[in-house]
């Protein structure tokens, strides 16, 4: 803990969290909202075509969720490494 080494467990875990969350960031916006839009538009939830819904609604909800997940994970990690008073 409090290591100045860039390969410290703290930094490694942080990078892991960031990478995983950015994969979800990509999937729910670029993949579902744009690349797979035409395919997903065959399906509907209520009056929304699914691809359209991801592009104009769903992706935004996921973005908010991703940041709060990151906040939670990092607060735990900070605590584990003695950064949180």
């Amino acid at each position, binding site marked *: 803990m409090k290591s100045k080494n860039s390969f410290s467990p703290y930094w490694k875990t942080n990078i892991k969290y960031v990478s995983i969350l950015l994969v979800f960031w990509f999937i729910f916006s670029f993949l579902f909202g744009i690349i797979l839009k035409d395919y997903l538009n065959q399906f509907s939830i209520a*009056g929304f075509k699914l691809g359209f819904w991801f592009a104009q609604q769903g*992706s935004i909800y996921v973005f908010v969720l991703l940041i709060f997940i990151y*906040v939670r994970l990092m607060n735990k990690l900070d605590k584990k490494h003695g950064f949180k008073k």
Partner: protein
Amino acid sequence: MSIQTWTYILVGLTFSVYIGIAFWSRVRSTKEFYVAGGGVGAWANGMATAADWMSAASFISMAGIISFAGYDGAVYLMGWTGGYVLLALLLAPYLRKFGKFTVPEFIAERYYSNNARMVAVFCALLVSFTYVAGQMRGVGIVFSRFLEVDINTGVIIGMLIVLFYAVLGGMKGITYTQVAQYCVLIFAFMVPAIFISIQMTGNPIPQLGFGSQLTDGSSVYLLDKLDNLNVELGFNEYTENTKPMIDIFAITLALMVGTAGLPHVIVRFFTVKKVSDARKSAGIALLLIAILYTTAPAVAAFARTNLLETISDKPYSEIPQWFKKWENTGLIKFTDLNDDGMIDYSNDQSNELYVDRDIMVLANPEIANLPNWVVALVAAGGLAAALSTAAGLLLVISASVSHDLIKRVIFPEISEKGELVVARISAFFAVCIAGYFGINPPGFVAAVVALAFGLAAASFFPAIVMGIFYKKMNREGAISGMLAGIGLMLFYMLKFKFDFFGGGSADDYWFGISPEGFGSVAMIVNFLVAFFVMNFTSPTPNAIKEIVDNIRIPENE
């Protein structure tokens, strides 16, 4: 009471609140002026960031743009929210830990070079001036439409208000007025949206209402109806794309990365108390922004359906009152080409109707027959959105001049008191220049807004991310990367927006990507050039590597 009386009351009331807050939060030190003393709580910063971010364009224009663009409008919805994920995960916590006043300062210290600072200052000024001109214009437009004063008078009133709290209170004054402005603007946006959602679909939540069935007895889904109406009139289906998918992808990415690289957004995260607050307030900011951004597409769909049903193919003699009123402002124009007295609206030469996009939000409450106070509320909300963004930008401009240019380069011996005076003077001049552009808007404002995002994406974002996550990146690499990114972006804009270098049409776009989306390409070029140059130049000094190690941990022993 009439709409105008209500507007005077609501605008007067909100303005007095802003001035009161400014007076209460006047500052005495540069740290307070630049970063509100670094003592802003996570919620307050989240609200301030949301108001700072949501400009006149988000409030007045975005729903209207989506209304006409249908699915394609998603580039703004995803682009201007997804950037916050990048901000929270890649930038905000580390820049807060770094703990300085401006973005150029980070670039200069991390890349141990005042040349890097100058490149960053140039970008920050270009991006911020581009933006602020649009905001002042927005203030003028709202004033002129709702209070029937001259646009220029409106701009000057707006200038005086911003001047008062930006010069007096610096970042501290701006932060707490932005908190108040967020409340005003979100209330003003949501009230009409909820009313209209209930009217059209019976669902009080617009986000759900826009996927519901209409209450007109037909039990048809709103979006199906809109798809059909659009097709009947010769437009594209509302829920399908008109732009090529690669361009939609590129624009969304450029806007996201540009958002994360905009200096007036980044600097908000210098103001919080600690690193964990920077992460948390990015989440809160996006949550608060998402309330408006998920409502806007619903408003867009409601407004378009309403508009098509109310005026398309109807006799001009029977149109409602609001149409005549907005005709006077030139935002709606009807030319009876075939002299049949009917309004023919279509996607070809027989079209007789011009509808300005801004009207979808500004006139929406009137189109839906909502009470007068709701109409007035929209005016107060539009002003709050424009003023809050303008103030944030002005602070970036003033800090770039007084801190980065004067204190760090031209006149380092200046005392703190002297720097504070210079900061106030630069804020004053920045307001005057912004006001000048508000009164005499250059014809290219719309064209350069895309440039602002493109530049931020092509310069700041790669330089900061590499600065934090890649210790080996050195001065030479970062500077050449930034210059290559900016240069390429400017070249592409000038070529396709201003007809320089032989010009070109949409068919000549590289990879089918429009200038709006080209920031993505320029960003990639920045990264590639930076890596290439890095490999042939001297490595990062160890002292700098230690700085990087230090910003990677949330607090020191």
